[in-house]
C-alpha cells in the first residue's frame, strides 16, 4: 500500500495506528492456518482466499469488541468459520445433484474398488450434509480437535457438537451406502 495510507493512519492518532499494528500482527499469525481450514471446509481455494480476506476486514471492524488478546485465535477462528458457513449455505443447492450423479458413475464403474473411487464417493456425499454438520465433521476429522474444543470454537454447547457429529456421520454413511459403499471396503 502507498505511503500516503500509512501517513493517513498515523495522522489519525498513534492509538489507532497501534491498534492496527496489533491487529495486523495478530491476524498475520492466523492467516496460514485460517486459509488451510477454509480451503478444506469449502473445498475451493479461491473461495478460501475470499473468506480469509473478508475475515481480516471483518475482524478489524469488530476488533474493538475483543477484550482479551489471549482469545484472539478463537475469536478470529470463529469469524472464519462463520464466513465459511455462510458460503456453504449460499452454494449448497447447486452442487448436490451434480456431485451425487458423479459419485454414482464412479462407484458403478469397473474401477470401483480403488482408493480414488472411495474418496470420490466421500467427496460427493460430504457436500450433501448441511453446512453445520460439515463444519463439525471437518473440525473433528481434519483438525482432530476434541469435542470440547469444537464446542468452544463454534460457540455451541458440547451436547450439540456430539449430536451434530453423530448425525453428520450417520447421514454420510447413509449417503455412501446409497451410492453402493460397504463398510468392509468392498465397494
Amino acid at each position, binding site marked *: 500500500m502507498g505511503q500516503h*495510507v*500509512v501517513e493517513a*493512519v498515523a495522522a*489519525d492518532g498513534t*492509538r*489507532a495506528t*497501534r491498534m*492496527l*499494528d496489533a491487529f*495486523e500482527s495478530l*491476524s*498475520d499469525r492466523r*492467516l*496460514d492456518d485460517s*486459509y*488451510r481450514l477454509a*480451503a*478444506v471446509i469449502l*473445498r475451493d*481455494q479461491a473461495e478460501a*482466499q475470499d473468506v*480469509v*480476506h473478508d475475515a*481480516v*476486514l471483518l475482524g*478489524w471492524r*469488530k*476488533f*474493538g*469488541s*475483543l*477484550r*482479551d*488478546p489471549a*482469545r484472539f485465535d478463537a*475469536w478470529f477462528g*470463529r*469469524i472464519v468459520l462463520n464466513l465459511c458457513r455462510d458460503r456453504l449455505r449460499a452454494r449448497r443447492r447447486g452442487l448436490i445433484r451434480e456431485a451425487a450423479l458423479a459419485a454414482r458413475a464412479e462407484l458403478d464403474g469397473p474401477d470401483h474398488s480403488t482408493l480414488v473411487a472411495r*474418496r470420490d464417493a*466421500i467427496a460427493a456425499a*460430504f457436500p450433501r450434509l448441511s453446512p453445520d454438520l460439515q463444519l463439525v*465433521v471437518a473440525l*473433528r*476429522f*481434519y483438525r482432530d480437535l476434541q469435542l470440547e474444543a469444537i464446542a*468452544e470454537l463454534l*460457540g*455451541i*454447547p458440547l451436547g*450439540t457438537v*456430539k449430536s451434530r*457429529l*453423530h448425525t453428520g*456421520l450417520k447421514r*454420510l*454413511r447413509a449417503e*455412501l451406502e446409497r451410492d453402493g*459403499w460397504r*463398510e*468392509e471396503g468392498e465397494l
Partner: protein
Amino acid sequence: MNLQDGRKAGGSGGLMETELSNWLRGLEPGGTPISLRFQAFADLREEAARPRPRFARPMAALSSAASLGTVVAGAGLMLLALVFVAGLGHTTGVAGGVASVPGAGQPANPPMDDFGGPGMSPLFMIGLPLATLIAAAGVLWPRLRLALSRLAFGRNPTTPAAPLPLPRNLRSISRLAWVLGAVAVAFALWFEFWIDHGAEPGPYRFNDLIAPIMLVPLWASVAVRYPMTDRSVRLILASTIMSITIDLLMVSITLLNQAALYPYWLDLIAVLNAACVVLLAAGVAGRSGGVRRPGLAIAAVAVGASFAMSATFFFWFGLDWRDPSNLSYAISQIGEAWFIKVAWLAMAWVGWNAARRPGAHWGWWLICAAAVLTLLAGLPGYLLQVYSNLAAIPIDLSFVDTPVWAQASAPVTAQTSDQARLLSWASWGATWWSVVLGLLAMASRTAALLSGLRPAPDADRTDPPAVADEDEAAAGAERQPSVVEIAAS
C-alpha cells in the same frame, strides 16, 4: 460406533472415518498464496485509513428505528385490516361473533370486550397473536423485514437494519422451545376466548391474553442473545421455558377440571412457580459476574419482611386450618409467595449493584426496574387488605368484578357502607395496578435480556471475567474499549 468423539475404536469398522480423514487432509492446500497476504493487509490498511462516516451512531440508530417502524407498520396494517373485516362482519350481521336472540327480530350487537373493540371476533383473536408473531419475527428475521419494508415503502434495494443488535439468528432457538411456546400461547388464547369467554374479570382477562404472548419473546430473547455455554444463561433459559410449561399446565388442569386433584395441583404449580423465579434469580446473579453480598442485617430484614407479608396476607383468607388440604394449600402458597419475593428482592439488589459499577451495561437498570415493578405490583393490594382487616370493613363487591383475594377475605354483606364501596373500588384499582405493573415488569425483563446483559466490570479485578470472554468469542460483536490498552502495551 463411539458417539463420544465420532471415531471408532479401530479395525475395519472405521473405514469411512479413515477415508474421510484422509480425504479432508488431501484437500489441504500446499501453502498460502502470497497475493492473499498482500491483498488482505493492503485492504486492511485502506479500510483503517478510510475516514469514519459522520454521525455513524445516530444514523445507525435511525436506520434501526426505521426498521422497527416498518415491522410495527406491517403488523399494524394487518391488524387494522383484520379489525376492519371483523367490523364488517358485525355490522352486516353475519354469523360468528353475533349474539343474536332467536326470535327477537332485530340485528344483534357485536360482543364488545373491555377494550371497547370487537375483541371476541374469532378473526380478531387469530389476527392479534399472528400480528404479534409477525412483529417479533420481523425483528429477528431479515427476509421478513425486507418483505415488510417493500410492502410499506415500495421497492427498497437494501434490507432495513436489525432493530436490535442480535448476534444470533432464529436458528439458535431450539425446536422444543418453539413448540412449547407456540402450544402455550395457542392453548392459552383458545382457552381464554373460546372456553372461558367473559368468565373472568377484565384485568385478569387482559393479563391472561398478554402474558402468554409475552413469554415467547422472553425465551426467544435469551436464545438469540446469549451463548448456551454459559451456565447462568442456561438457568435463565430454563426459567423462561418453565414459565411456559406452568402456563400450559394451568390451562390443562383447568380444562380437565379435576376436582379430585384440587388443591394438590395448586401446590405443584406453587412449587414450580417458586422454582422458576429462583432459577431466574440465580441466572441473573450469575450473569452479573458477582456483585457484593448484602449485609447480614439487610438480608435478614428483607427475608423476614417477605415472610411476614406472605404469611399475614394468607392468614386473612379465613381458611379452615384444621382441614389438612387447606393447611397444605396455605403452606405451599405462603412458601411460593415468600420465595418469589426473596428472589425478586435479590434480583433488585443484583441489578442495582451491577448497574452502579463504572462501565456497567445499562441492561442492569432494566433488571432492577423489573424487580422493583414486580415487588410494587402487589403492594397496594396488600395495604388494602391490611386496612380492610384492621378496620373490619367488609368490601362491597356487588358492583364490580371480584378480585379473588378480596372476595375471599371480605365476604359481601348487606350492610355496605360508603367506605366499603370506596374500598372495593380501590381494590379494583389495585388489581389493575397489579396487572399493569406485572406486564411492565415482564416487558422490562424482556428488554433487559434482549439488550445483552454483560457481567458488570469488577474494579478489584484486572482480567475480565470468563463469562464475558465467552460472549465476545461467541458474538464477536460486543463493544469494549480495553483493547486500546492492549494495543498500547
